[in-house]
């Protein structure tokens, strides 16, 4: 095992899956000759050829519709949407077709596809290269939503996604593509869906995060640790399916909960987490659940650092929640 970055782990997972199963095929804009604008598919075109790594025309509904069609014919396509901000032209194919195919056909036609897409801010991408809209998909029954925060999770969860028979949206935290590094097991080692990861144990307050907010939250936990506050940091890993048991268990233990995500607060995924916690753990809660999120505005450019939950803002929120009445 050697240290790799998160994006290298993505690349490895694709390579392992392709080597193992000829039905795994990649498609997307600039993923072939160019190796992807973030280089997630670097080297794969050379290794597997143009029949398995398809450079597509500029049409996201084309990409997703093609992928679903390929899946209907028995392949296991992995499509890349260059930025999550550009997934919307494919929205109809995702919610009307992919997410509903198995159900509407009584199980006859599952849509076995993976949609990989870099999401989130922190790269000076402004309104259209920074969004984090997991909520659009978590609220759509029939599609799984996966967001890794470490190289090992990226590889293991992506491998699970590729061989999972349901449609999976695989959101990659591009901000930490190269800064998150770690060891990754060789070969086809998968991480199951629906199992949260305790990134740091603690007893005073539970903090739930995913993707690029996990490293921020861990840093914040270290800040409050110095004040004597022991925060438990839970990395959710998969939003659908959600590990409700792990969430409830942690809050029952600590009696306090903080949620961190990049997306706007109003009607964001944090609302489901907050509601779930308050509804299920009301009698254990010693303080109101706190959501630390992006603001309810489009994603800004110049003021991005003020918009995104920062280590200081998260630390302040954890501290307040841990110490309130």
């Amino acid at each position, binding site marked *: 095992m050697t240290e790799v970055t998160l994006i290298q782990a993505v690349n490895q997972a694709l390579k392992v899956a392709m080597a193992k199963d000829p039905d795994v095929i990649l498609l997307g804009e600039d993923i072939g000759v160019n190796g992807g604008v973030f280089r997630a598919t670097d080297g794969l075109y050379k290794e597997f050829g143009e029949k398995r790594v398809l450079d597509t025309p500029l049409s996201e509904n084309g990409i997703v*519709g093609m992928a679903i069609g390929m899946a209907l014919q028995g392949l296991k396509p992995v499509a890349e949407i260059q930025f999550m901000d550009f997934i919307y032209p494919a929205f109809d194919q995702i919610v009307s077709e992919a997410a509903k195919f198995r159900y509407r056909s009584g199980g006859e*036609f599952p849509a076995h596809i993976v949609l990989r897409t870099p999401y989130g801010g922190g790269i000076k991408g402004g309104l259209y290269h920074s969004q984090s809209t997991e909520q659009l998909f978590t609220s759509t029954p029939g599609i799984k939503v996966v967001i890794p925060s470490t190289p090992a999770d990226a590889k293991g969860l992506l491998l699970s996604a590729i061989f999972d028979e349901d449609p999976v949206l695989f959101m990659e935290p591009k901000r930490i593509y190269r800064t998150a590094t770690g060891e990754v097991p060789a070969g086809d080692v998968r991480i199951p869906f629906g199992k949260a990861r305790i990134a740091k144990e603690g007893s005073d307050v539970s903090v739930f995060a995913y993707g690029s907010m996990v490293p921020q939250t861990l840093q914040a936990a270290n800040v409050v640790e110095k004040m004597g506050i022991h925060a438990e940091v839970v990395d959710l890993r998969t939003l659908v399916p959600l590990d409700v048991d792990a969430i409830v268990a942690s809050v029952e233990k600590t009696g306090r909960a903080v949620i961190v995500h990049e997306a706007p607060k109003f009607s964001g995924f944090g609302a489901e987490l907050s509601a779930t916690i308050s509804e299920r753990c009301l009698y254990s809660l010693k303080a109101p659940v706190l959501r630390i999120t992006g603001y309810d505005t489009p994603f800004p450019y110049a003021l991005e650092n003020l918009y995104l939950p920062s280590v200081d803002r998260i630390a302040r929120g954890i501290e307040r929640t841990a110490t309130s009445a």
Partner: protein
Amino acid sequence: MSEVGDPSKETMLRGFRLMVLGRAADERGTNLQRQGRIGFYVPMNGQEAAQVGCGLALDAQDWILPAYRELGVALARGIPLKTLFDQFFGNSADLLKGRQMPCHYGYRDYRYITASSPIGTQIVLATGIAAASLYKGEKVVSVPFFGDGATSSSDFHAGMNFAGVYKAPVIFFLQNNGWAISLPREKQTRSPTLAEKAEAYGFPGVQVDGNDFAAVYKAVSQARARAVAGEGPTLIEALTFRMGPHSTSDDPTRYRKSEVVASWREKDPIDRLQSELIAKGWLDEAGAEKIHEEAKLEVQSAIDAAEKSPPPDPSTLFDDVFKEPTSLLEEQRREFLEMVSQGVLRP
């Protein structure tokens, strides 16, 4: 699949029987809705030649991606009538488990993809299936069915473009029936023909008389031969007419003149094929009459059989969201079944 080019006598007779059967089933579909026995219906009346002609020119291994009006195609594929009526009733025998409005059926054994309602989505799915067939080396085509209205959809543009780029074996089968609900073809797009839209994607488009069974058969069989020979996709515009309402929710007298409808009645595809067969001496009046009568009986017995099945079991509501239900879905199912058993929830 049979011959490439002109249909044989056998194919013509088979087509006639299927068209008559389709008409009979279709009329009952509308009636069942009017009687309140099913919830909704989308008539194909008038489009039988286009649909059956296309369906018979394909191979059993080809992939069908219907819109919602393709009863003739389903029958040409051999999907049993009872399967269709089970779906119209949304009963427990329905392959779709009662999950969709009538006319959205599908059947994997027949490579007939379960329909959805959004217009156009199947067009690009067809290109994906065809690309996969190419990759796997299967010599089959994909055939999306859609209307003049669907040519305005985003997925028409994407499906056509990708098929051109990858030379995917797709036959884009467009039934131009003159209307998209209330919008006449002339207001859908200013292109002189719909067939010529194919040129924008670098492959041929052909117009064919959609009420002429043999002409449709020929065009499709030739497009199929081209596609499996690796020469890429074809767009076929079959000119036809929707004789009835858009669906049982529609009142076409609000937007079109009865004279136009009457003029198309003169071109009825079944009458026309019947006359042709009689003229060729391949059928006589009595034989035709018998086919019409048999069709009605066959439809009646399918309806009788389908109407016997009870509604789907409530607990199936939670199946097939995913391959395995999540723990949250199982939790919901438990609460739900408790309410069903307590009579809080009633169908």
